[in-house]
């Protein structure tokens, strides 16, 4: 019996669009825009100036703060501009614009690292940090921070998250099918760096082909396990995975580290392996470009900093009347207002929906059916949280522990009144955050 958690929903998955399409490498972009913030944490400062020539893999932005990750040039060429450009989050963020010279010269410092057995824990962490690796499943939390738990917290389990619960997305699925060895090497590296004994690869039961391959590959490795989890949204949330697999609950406001677990996406594991094998930092990623508005939906390997416009052209361009373009999955993704936005380290998908598919929610008053409470995977009461957000009652929202909300969108999905619950919750979170910052500055 596949393992799962309480709550959650079963949205239509639409994965057939790209499930059987092999990962294709996109052609070289003429220009890339690299925002200096592609991770959770401090924004990097540029290390180059306008007019500099940069090579592939060269570090062009870094920060000395712990929670941050450096940015690397993804193509070789000339730095055209360093100016605020549109970021997937919607605001304008300082970005480095590189114009390609078409050569793709690799930087001199790029060389393979010694095999994993010869590396120490510290060295692996340093490699991961210098390669600018962040959580590639969508949260963009710097991976080296996850791998360096404080000494009082012992990590017992590493969970490699291959559940991919968001509808439409298939990039992790294809990656697991095509590069399973890399994922296993990456898992071993993560286990060594975090000092964990057990490694678990969690896969949803709607990917039987992947489960077969993975089980075959890890045969004979005692400390690695493949665990099959139930197909349900949000199974890929780290708290939900820990609950389903280990039956442990992450305390309110805590991190998975607090229960001795580190959760990483399969993309992150594969990237770590790639960096160890070739020395190349994080400069490209796999993106699922899909939806009814795209002519030829596919899984593309694109250079980071490529605009969505370029990536869409690679997939045959748009078709029909476009209603909405989203970054990430349809449940948690961010709607975009422009096609000039670059693809960043954490964008796992670009979804184009046609006008007909985009439903505008009515946002009627709550009718107290309680469906959202049943669906909430955290066990919050979204109905009351929505009311608190709508009436700007931040104190009430705080009492109902709004901060524990993972913004998965299950409540909005099941709501009969079509209330914009997640929006109200986000509003309350933002207001509380602002208040906290104000108090700090005082």
């Amino acid at each position: 019996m596949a393992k799962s958690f309480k709550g959650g929903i079963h949205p239509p998955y639409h994965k057939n669009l790209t499930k059987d399409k092999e990962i294709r490498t996109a052609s070289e972009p003429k220009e890339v825009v690299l925002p200096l913030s592609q991770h959770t944490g401090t924004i990097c400062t540029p290390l180059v100036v306008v007019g500099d020539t940069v090579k592939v893999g060269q570090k062009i932005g870094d920060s000395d703060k712990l929670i941050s990750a450096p940015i690397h040039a993804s193509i070789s060429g000339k730095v055209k501009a360093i100016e605020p450009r549109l970021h997937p989050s919607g605001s304008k963020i300082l970005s480095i614009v590189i114009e390609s010279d078409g050569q793709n010269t690799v930087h001199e410092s790029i060389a393979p690292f010694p095999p994993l057995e010869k590396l120490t824990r510290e060295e692996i962490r340093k490699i991961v940090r210098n390669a600018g690796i962040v959580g590639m499943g969508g949260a963009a939390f710097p991976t080296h921070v996850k791998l360096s738990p404080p000494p009082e917290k012992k990590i017992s389990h590493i969970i490699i998250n291959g559940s991919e619960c968001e509808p439409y997305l298939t990039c992790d699925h294809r990656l697991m099918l095509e590069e399973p060895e890399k994922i296993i090497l990456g898992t071993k590296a993560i286990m060594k760096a975090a000092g964990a004994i057990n490694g678990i690869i969690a896969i949803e039961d709607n990917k039987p082909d992947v489960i077969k391959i993975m089980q075959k590959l890890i045969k004979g490795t005692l400390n690695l396990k493949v665990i099959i989890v139930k197909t349900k949204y949000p199974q890929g949330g780290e708290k939900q995975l820990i609950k389903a697999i280990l039956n442990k609950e992450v305390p309110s406001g805590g991190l998975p580290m607090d229960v001795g677990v580190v959760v990483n996406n399969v993309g992150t594991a594969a990237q770590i392996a790639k960096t160890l094998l070739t020395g190349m930092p994080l400069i490209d990623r796999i993106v699922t470009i899909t939806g009814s508005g795209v002519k030829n939906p596919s899984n593309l390997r694109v250079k980071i900093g490529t605009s969505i416009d370029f990536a869409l052209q690679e997939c045959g361009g748009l078709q029909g009347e476009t209603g909405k373009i989203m970054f990430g999955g349809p449940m948690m993704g961010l709607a975009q207002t422009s096609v000039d936005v670059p693809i960043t380290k954490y964008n796992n998908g670009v979804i184009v929906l046609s006008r007909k598919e985009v439903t505008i929610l009515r946002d009627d008053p709550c009718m107290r059916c309680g469906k959202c409470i049943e669906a909430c995977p955290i066990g919050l009461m979204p109905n009351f949280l929505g009311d608190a957000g709508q009436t700007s009652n931040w104190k009430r929202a705080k009492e109902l522990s709004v901060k524990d909300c993972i913004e998965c969108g299950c409540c909005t999905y099941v709501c009969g009144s079509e209330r914009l619950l997640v929006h109200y919750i986000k509003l309350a979170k933002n207001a509380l955050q602002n208040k906290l910052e104000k108090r700090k500055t005082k």
Partner: protein
Amino acid sequence: MIDINIIINAILLMGILGAFSAFMISIASKVFHVALNPKVEAINQILPGANCGACGAGGCTDYAEKAAKGLLPINACRPGGAKVASAIAQILGIEEAGFTHKKAVVHCGANETQRIKRAEYAGIPKCREEELAVGGYLECTYGCLGFGDCYLTCPFDAITMIEGLPKINFKKCTGCGKCVSACPRNIISLEKYDEGKPLYAIACSSKDKGSVTRKICPVGCIKCKICEYKKATDQTPWQTCVEKCPTKCIVKL
């Protein structure tokens, strides 16, 4: 027939109960007496009672207490103005601190029809939510979004939304600053205001380059610096600026 005894009993019982309660209350009022500062009472009487929070206290009563203790300046009450400031000075018997009038000024001049939209927005009609969800559905990332968060928050009814742009009524505006903190794009500021004198303002907050602004807004500041030049050479600088500004983004309010 009505039994007269029942009525008498009831009156007696209630009378005794009442007298006893009165006695207990009179004792309690002596024993649990809280010494009230008469000055706090007096200040509370003259405050406008809007509970706007512009002074920095939780409300008017809170401000009265803090002002009497000297924790907050006596001219902090924005809606009260000079009148209240001098009255508080009299009550506390200290020197008057003076009062500068401030009015809220909107630094954006593009109305609903002049704004260029790059997407449709169908979420919660609130500026802050809109800014949070997609970072603005307008081409201009500095200008007014037009959902009227400031209009909803104003405790003095001084803001009206005209064609999606807030218009501030200076007669009603007290300069409490609630709209300043309500605006997610920080385009409202408090400006010094002298009664009778006109107030000039730049109705644009854009930090974009002139060429960018020109493409996306007909009334945005294009950084031509004609105002800086004119201001240095002219006798009535502001009036000349208003006349010379090519996009008419310097306005007289």
